[in-house]
């Protein structure tokens, strides 16, 4: 049996005024039945990778096989069995109803009429869109359009689905119910594979069997969320609360792998990953030297975010 996705030495260069290497010699294997996440900062190359895998974009070099077929020469075979939805996607024909839009796409995939109808109804209910089903798409909200597109992705019952930031811009309750659905979708039937990209650590941690951390077009690490966290080591994840300071100096200290700072109640909460515990003394001196006052200090169980900082050298925000 072949893997769901097999990427070998894949590169993608965009030529323009300046050449941009969006993907740089990427190797990656995703097994059938996996819920696989791509995690990385803006411009890391996540969307580019997804576009190549769903046959929208050609690689510059290297190969990618999806469901055993080559994305370049065997795109036809791939297209029958995949689908893709990107976050914030508002595409659709405004003068058709939501149901008509969905119906048309299932028919592009040759889904048998009765099956398509049942599936669309079930999904509309699942995503709380049944009362908008027969309303023209142009009259619904952006979030509802986005939900329709998520339904579009699942309505063709693909063997492999690509979701590019599926919960981007959706409210918290909706995001939770979508995450629940995604998990169920992969678990409930054998052999269905999902690849999603996300900026939300929680999403990656909660959902994914394995996560690839991607930065500047390169895959930095591929592991289970737990495995990634283990790489941080136990003694090096700290949370410091201080009066507001400029954190630029802190990140340049030797021994600081990465940090993120968030304002909170007039203070600053700085989460950092250190090479080892002893560096914390330097950090505190630096905070004081920058005119700050430390009001709290704690050591933490490493999170996926810490793992990300540890590997990439900076936070995701």
């Amino acid at each position: 049996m072949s893997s769901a996705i097999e990427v070998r030495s894949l590169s993608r260069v965009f030529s323009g005024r300046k050449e941009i290497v969006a993907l740089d010699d990427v190797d990656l294997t995703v097994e059938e039945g996996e819920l696989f996440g791509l995690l990385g900062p803006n411009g890391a190359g996540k969307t580019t990778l997804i576009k190549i895998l769903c046959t929208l974009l050609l690689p510059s070099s290297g190969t990618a096989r999806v469901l055993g077929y080559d994305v370049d020469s065997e795109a036809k075979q791939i297209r029958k069995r995949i689908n893709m939805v990107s976050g914030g996607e508002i595409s659709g024909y405004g003068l058709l109803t939501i149901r008509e839009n969905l119906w048309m796409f299932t028919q592009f995939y040759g889904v048998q009429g009765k099956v398509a109808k049942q599936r669309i109804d079930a999904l509309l209910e699942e995503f709380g869109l049944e009362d908008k089903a027969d309303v023209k798409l142009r009259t619904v909200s952006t979030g509802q359009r986005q939900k329709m597109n998520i339904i579009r992705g699942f309505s063709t019952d693909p063997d492999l689905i690509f979701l590019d930031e599926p919960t981007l811009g959706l409210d918290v309750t909706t995001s939770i119910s979508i995450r629940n659905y995604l998990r169920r979708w992969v678990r409930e039937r054998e052999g269905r594979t999902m690849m999603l990209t996300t900026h939300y650590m929680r999403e990656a941690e909660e959902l994914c069997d394995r996560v690839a951390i991607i930065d500047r077009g390169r895959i930095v690490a591929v592991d289970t969320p737990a495995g990634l966290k283990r790489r941080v080591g136990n003694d090096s994840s700290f949370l410091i609360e201080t009066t507001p300071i400029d954190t630029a100096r802190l990140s340049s200290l030797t021994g600081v792998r990465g940090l993120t700072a968030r304002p909170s109640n007039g203070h600053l909460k700085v989460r950092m990953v250190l090479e080892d515990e002893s560096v914390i003394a330097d950090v505190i001196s630096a905070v004081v030297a920058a005119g700050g006052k430390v009001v709290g200090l704690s050591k933490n169980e490493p999170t996926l975010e810490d793992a990300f900082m540890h590997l990439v050298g900076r936070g995701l925000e």
Partner: protein
Amino acid sequence: MAVRDHLRTLRLAAWLGWQIESNWARPALFLLYSFIRPIATTLILVIMYLIIKQDVSSDPAFFSYVYLGATFYMFVSSVVFGITYVIHADREHYQTLRNIYISPVSLYVYIIGRATGKVALAALAVVISMAFGILVLGLPFDPMLVDWPLFAIAMLLGLACLVSLGLALAGISMLTAKHSTSINEGVGGLVYLLCGAVFPITVLPAWGQAIGLMIPVTYWLELIRRSLYPGEGIAMLGGLQDFGDLTILSFLLASTLVFAALSLAMFHLADRNARRKGKLDMITTY
């Protein structure tokens, strides 16, 4: 199996195209756009003709030549540019192009389906323009004297040829920004001048005539005129009087086949290029 899939795609796309074309939410705008504008364009030519020739009845064959050419040329602009518009609309306005592109349907077949709505509307506009010409301007016409079989075959081949031309341009549209319609307009203007739409190609310089004779639209319009005009007089005008109807029909058939093959090749080339350059979900930024 594959044929059945293509037929389904064709049917769906035609349905969608018709939904979009017949979106009568603003009927006034729709009527203006679909009928009044093309007919007005034809009428401008008629007025120019009247200024030069003073009246219609003095030279009915020549008037028919101009009027039929201008009227049926509506198919060219409507079909050819309608098709290229599908790419830009689906890519940027509806943003569905990439979803359709990564689906199992053939984009080529899909676009042909979408175009049928345009063809239907153009046909309606042509019928209205013809009625106006016959009833108001005294355009010579007698249904008993029309060569209907020749007309039907010519229409069929002509539309096939226009759809091919449209698809070739649609291929180019995949690679261009929304506002760069200059290629289309350039091609449209050139074809208009070279195919004898409103004046016989005999007035063109030799090289212009040579190109004109390579464009299937030239033969198509000639056959339309010959089949619709009651009598022989019109065949003397187009510079093709040495050729019989069947010969011209075979020219039309041959050039349509060549055009279709070329457009298919061009479309596939453009498709690949668009996929290589990442143009399929491009949004034109101004």
